[in-house]
């Protein structure tokens, strides 16, 4: 725990000091901001009613902007995590860390929490959209907004943990980023695949299984659109994180058996 906390503090402070992390979050916030204002402006234009502001679909605007943020995570998550473990291997600092009295798990989990903290920070920045909607008199449904943010938060943690695996596998950050992006897309699109497979009646159980694996089936279709917080969805994301961090820990541990 003590070691995990030490690793977490170091990595978090690195995130908040790194230009790359700020560049990524600036670009993201700018992009989402343009999207947000054009949606609000359009809704305003199309309404001729004197009570126009009440007709701005606040829930939809938040759904759309959070949906875009989470979709873009397939690029952002690998960029945030690619350095975390591959750099330690390349610089050789992992040799020092693995000879300190600290388990591989605290090392991996500390780094993961740091990345998740930075993501949480970026996610909280988008709350400005909710505040702006409130300021112009639109009242998005509080429960729905909470569910959407909880969903986006869990989704972010899950994709960050997926990309951590690749950072442990390779010493090359670019390779780690590409493989991370690819694996997120595969899980993201899994429900589309399930849809295709479903047309074959004999494969229906396979389709169900693939759908349950997909990120979207647990996020976009439930939390983001309906605001229903199902235990199964929350469990899916938490288990996905635990599984990915476990695999990452094992991979870091295999370094002890390798020649270098």
């Amino acid at each position, binding site marked *: 725990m*003590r070691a995990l*906390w030490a690793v977490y503090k170091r990595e978090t402070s690195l995130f908040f000091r790194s230009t790359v992390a700020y560049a990524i979050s600036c670009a993201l916030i700018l992009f989402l901001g343009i999207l947000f204002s054009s949606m609000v402006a359009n809704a305003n234009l199309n309404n001729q009613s004197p009570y126009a502001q009440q007709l701005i679909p606040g829930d939809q605007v938040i759904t759309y902007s959070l949906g875009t943020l989470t979709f873009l995570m397939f690029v952002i998550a690998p960029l945030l995590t690619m350095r975390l473990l591959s750099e330690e291997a390349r610089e*050789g600092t992992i040799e020092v860390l693995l000879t*300190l009295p600290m388990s591989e798990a605290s090392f991996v989990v500390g780094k993961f929490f740091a990345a998740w903290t930075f993501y949480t920070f970026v996610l909280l920045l988008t709350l400005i959209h909710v505040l702006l909607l409130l300021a112009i008199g639109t009242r998005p449904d509080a429960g729905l907004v909470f569910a959407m943010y909880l969903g986006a938060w869990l989704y972010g943690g899950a994709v960050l943990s997926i990309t951590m695996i690749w950072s442990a596998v390779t010493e090359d950050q670019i390779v780690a980023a590409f493989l991370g992006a690819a694996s997120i897309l595969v899980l993201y699109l899994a429900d589309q695949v399930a849809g295709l497979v479903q047309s074959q009646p004999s494969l229906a159980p396979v389709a169900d299984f693939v759908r349950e694996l997909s990120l979207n089936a647990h996020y976009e279709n439930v939390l983001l659109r309906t605001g229903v917080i199902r235990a199964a969805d929350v469990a899916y994301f938490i288990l996905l994180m635990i599984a990915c961090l476990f695999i990452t820990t094992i991979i870091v541990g295999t370094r002890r058996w390798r020649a270098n």
Partner: protein
Amino acid sequence: MIDVQQLVKRYGDVTAVKGISFTAESGQVTGFLGPNGAGKTTTMRILTGYTPPSAGRAIVAGFDVFENSMAVRQRVGYLPENVPLYRDMSVQDYLMYVGEIRGLAHRRARATAVLKRVSLEQRSHSLIRTLSKGMKQRVGLAAALIHDPEVLILDEPTIGLDPLQVLELRDLVKELGQHHTVLFSTHILSEAEQVCDKVVIINRGTIMAQGAPTALRGELERGGRVLVRVLGDHDKLLTIVRAVPGVLDAELAVDGVIATPDNPDQDPRPALAKAIVEAELSLIELRPLAVNLEEIFLEITRNEASLSQPMSEMDTPITVEGVS
């Protein structure tokens, strides 16, 4: 204290360490000596709990490195060969970070103390990437010392330093050796001779010799071979040397004649000197062979190389074991 017994490390088909045994006492500096690729780093990585052994046992500070890895890691300070450090941290922050992972109380005081120890206190707020090679080496050493470990394992700490820094580091290692168990690897033999209380010579994963540098030297000198040089004709010298009583055999070397006595404990030099002077040759050098570790080392590795050709690698028992 370090106690290694029949330690083996295999990487796939390659056996990097082939059943070595040695001990390193506390309050001593033990030199781990060998050419590049001899298995020094692999052995040290096993002793620090970085990599598990394939067979054999290693007890470090009273704990088995495999079964009680955490206990060992708490008691060992390790400086890896290429001194990996976080380039983007300041010296002080790095030491505090290592201290925090180790769960030290009074980290700031400890960091200040070890920085003073390695005389780097003025640079405590510099980023590590701005430091010179020698300073980085000292930061690595400070990090290895921060928890005042029982056992200190230093993998080639003097590599890449300028001559003055090398001297400073050797003095520091010697000093540390008074209170800790220090295992110190190097491929520079004179360094081991100056710094170490005990030397373990390793080559191709096997121990070739071990003991105090002086005992090791004595042992090889007692083999008794003597180099004789005169001005002029060495062929004539060869016949004279062969005729000296107590000389078993003599051979021509590049720059003189090497005489082997029948009795290793009997120094043939007085008799040789007398015979040469009587033959009216001008004697310019008469000394025992293998006077320093350099020569012992070359001798051992050369013997091994020439003998291992016809035999398989595993059964070349050219060790000078039993010196301790």
